[in-house]
């Protein structure tokens, strides 16, 4: 965890006072709805379908047990005793009262949490790899760079009223686990031939209604120049990004309209003025931020080889336990994808128990993943069995990380006023259809993502199977895409006309049947098969008339 110094704390406290005053002025009728909207959104407060929604920042997904206990307590006292972890590593409360929000923010500030810039047309919570700091393929610990960017972006006076929201992702490892190619800016740590650290800079990616894979505008940006280069990109965007049309206001449209080369030239020309200026980072500052992070005191332990006796513990270990750079340790996913529970939802009771587990097993820290699960990053391998038993008793040990039922889903029409359709019941219906664990494991790795509208909060474009809620004459329909991939980023393609909600699980089943019939071996994943054979065989099967129905799934699974 990054620990605030006195100034960091003061900034957050002053923000609480500022928002308290803004809320007071709004309730007294001295701030208009529209003006207050711009202000409340940058404090994470939405007015939703049934109630306000408060989005609390979990900066780059890193959380302490103390903070999680506070979140549990706040959810219990100000909400309905549960919270929802989002795909942007934040926590959302669905039922707070508007007039309570300043008090909630004040309580959050006591544990160094806030809701700063979790919405609004500003730089949002920067996201990263949930295995940062423990991954074997690490180049840098991205948390340090995320914190530097958090400070640069917090109340940035020049970039507080951008054309649209702005999302930055930082990846510090060789593999990209935070989808840098589909963010407004993606930063991917690299080393050059002299072994110096820098970043590959990717701009203009994004999902939403115009999904675009970003463009590399710089292969190697030395780390010292990170903030001045961000200043240059943001300044070009702030000045020239479209403000006439909400749907064309993201930086991806500017990059597309200008062309990536011309956009890069403009950024470089702007940067020429800022380079080596006072915002140039120093080694002292990087070291200072690094030193304010708590670090686990690892013991010297040997790796443990568990016998692969078939059974629930082995299944869990196979799916939910991940390698660690430190021998004798492992990272553990806490699955928030139990069938029947909306993806990413946790109760206050569970939050408290998870905080206890973090204290006992993982140095009091945990991470939130963009797949809406939690990670205990530093678990002794010798304690895996004990941890598994405890997680199982809490309903948090579903062995489905990377599998079809680990569904990413936005809150959808049950909560969100933007949604065209519900997503949670669709996720649940699919989970129920694929409740046979052996079958699920046989299908293998599969990312299934659901968004309730084309804003794509459920990242449906980069799911191996993506489901999008659409509105047709006031009715809910669902469009299905296949072949998307998060890393390397690739966008899915729509298979054809959309479906009624009740049809969706059957469609997924047909897609899976096709895959199982077509795959070379169980090493070839669903998405690999889509890329190899194309959409046609899948479409044929899904849209076939009943009299041409294929063989039932069990035969195929056994084949």
């Amino acid at each position, binding site marked *: 965890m990054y620990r605030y110094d006195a100034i960091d704390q003061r900034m957050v406290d002053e923000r609480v006072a500022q928002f308290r005053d803004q809320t007071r002025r709004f309730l007294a009728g001295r701030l208009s709805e529209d003006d207050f909207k711009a202000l409340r959104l940058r404090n994470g407060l939405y007015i939703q379908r049934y109630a306000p929604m408060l989005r609390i920042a979990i900066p780059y997904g890193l959380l302490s047990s103390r903070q999680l206990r506070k979140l549990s307590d706040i959810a219990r006292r100000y909400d309905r005793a549960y919270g929802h972890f989002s795909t942007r590593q934040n926590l959302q409360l669905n039922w707070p009262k508007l007039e309570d929000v300043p008090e909630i923010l004040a309580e959050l500030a006591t544990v160094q949490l806030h809701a700063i810039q979790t919405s609004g047309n500003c730089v949002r919570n920067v996201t990263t790899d949930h295995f940062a700091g423990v991954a074997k393929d690490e180049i840098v610990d991205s948390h340090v760079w995320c914190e530097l960017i958090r400070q640069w972006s917090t109340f940035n*006076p*020049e970039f507080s009223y951008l054309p649209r929201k702005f999302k930055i992702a930082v990846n510090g490892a060789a593999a990209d686990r935070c989808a840098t190619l589909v963010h407004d800016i993606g930063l991917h740590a690299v080393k050059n031939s002299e072994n110096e650290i820098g970043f590959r800079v990717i701009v203009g990616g994004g999902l939403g209604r115009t999904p675009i894979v970003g463009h590399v505008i710089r292969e190697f940006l030395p780390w010292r120049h990170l903030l001045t280069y961000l200043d240059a990109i943001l300044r070009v965007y702030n000045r020239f990004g479209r403000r006439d049309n909400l749907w064309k206001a993201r930086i991806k449209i500017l990059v597309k309209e200008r062309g990536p080369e011309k956009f890069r030239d403009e950024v470089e020309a702007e940067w020429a003025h800022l380079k080596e200026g006072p915002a140039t980072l120093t080694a002292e*500052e990087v070291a200072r931020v690094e030193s304010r992070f708590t670090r686990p005191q690892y013991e010297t332990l040997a790796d443990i080889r568990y016998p692969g006796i078939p059974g629930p513990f082995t299944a869990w270990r196979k799916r939910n336990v991940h390698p660690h750079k430190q021998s004798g340790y492992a990272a553990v996913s806490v699955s928030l994808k139990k069938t029947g529970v909306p993806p990413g939802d946790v109760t206050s009771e569970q939050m408290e128990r998870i905080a206890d587990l973090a204290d006992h097993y993982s140095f009091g820290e945990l991470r939130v993943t963009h797949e809406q699960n939690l990670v205990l990053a530093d678990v002794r391998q010798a304690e895996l069995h004990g941890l598994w038993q405890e997680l199982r008793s809490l309903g948090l040990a579903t062995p489905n990380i990377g599998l079809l039922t680990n569904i990413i889903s936005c809150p959808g029409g049950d909560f969100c006023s933007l949604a065209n359709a519900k997503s949670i019941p669709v996720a649940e219906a699919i989970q129920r259809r694929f409740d046979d664990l052996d079958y699920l494991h046989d299908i293998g790795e599969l990312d299934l993502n659901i968004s309730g509208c084309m804003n794509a909060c459920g990242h449906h474009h980069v799911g191996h199977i993506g489901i999008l809620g659409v509105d047709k004459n006031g009715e809910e329909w669902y469009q299905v895409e296949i072949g998307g991939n998060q890393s390397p980023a690739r966008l899915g393609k729509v298979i054809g006309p959309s479906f009624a909600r009740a049809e969706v699980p059957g469609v997924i089943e047909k897609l899976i049947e096709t895959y199982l019939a077509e795959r070379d071996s169980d090493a070839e994943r669903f998405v690999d098969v889509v890329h190899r054979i194309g959409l046609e065989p899948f479409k044929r099967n899904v849209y076939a008339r009943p009299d041409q129905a294929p063989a039932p799934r069990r035969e195929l699974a056994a084949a």
Partner: protein
Amino acid sequence: MPVLIKHRRLAESSPPPDLVLEPTDDPALVAASLGQARVVAVRFPKFGDGRGFSLARLLRERYGYKGELRAIGAVGRDHLRSMAQCGFDAFELRAGEDPQEALAGFGDFSESYQSSTAQPLPLFRRRAA
């Protein structure tokens, strides 16, 4: 008469601007005439339109403008501190703003992380000192 704040005080009066920049204007094109200007205004057409923040920094930091830089248009209490950081020193408040309350807006925060016109050294360079 709109209320004008100058140097963090309510101002009696001030000359009209010699030059008004719209958000789409390029400060480079007026750079040559900045030496003669006493008052340059930058218009904020809407509460959420932040282009003027960048224009102000360019006028001050790149083109060396030293005279009065006035924010006009949708200028409210909640913008004042950021505007001041970006180099504005005069603010024509939009209708309906309470001038005394607005003055308090400058004090919303006692520190900033970033390099800006008003404080070119980012916090990290001052923290280290």
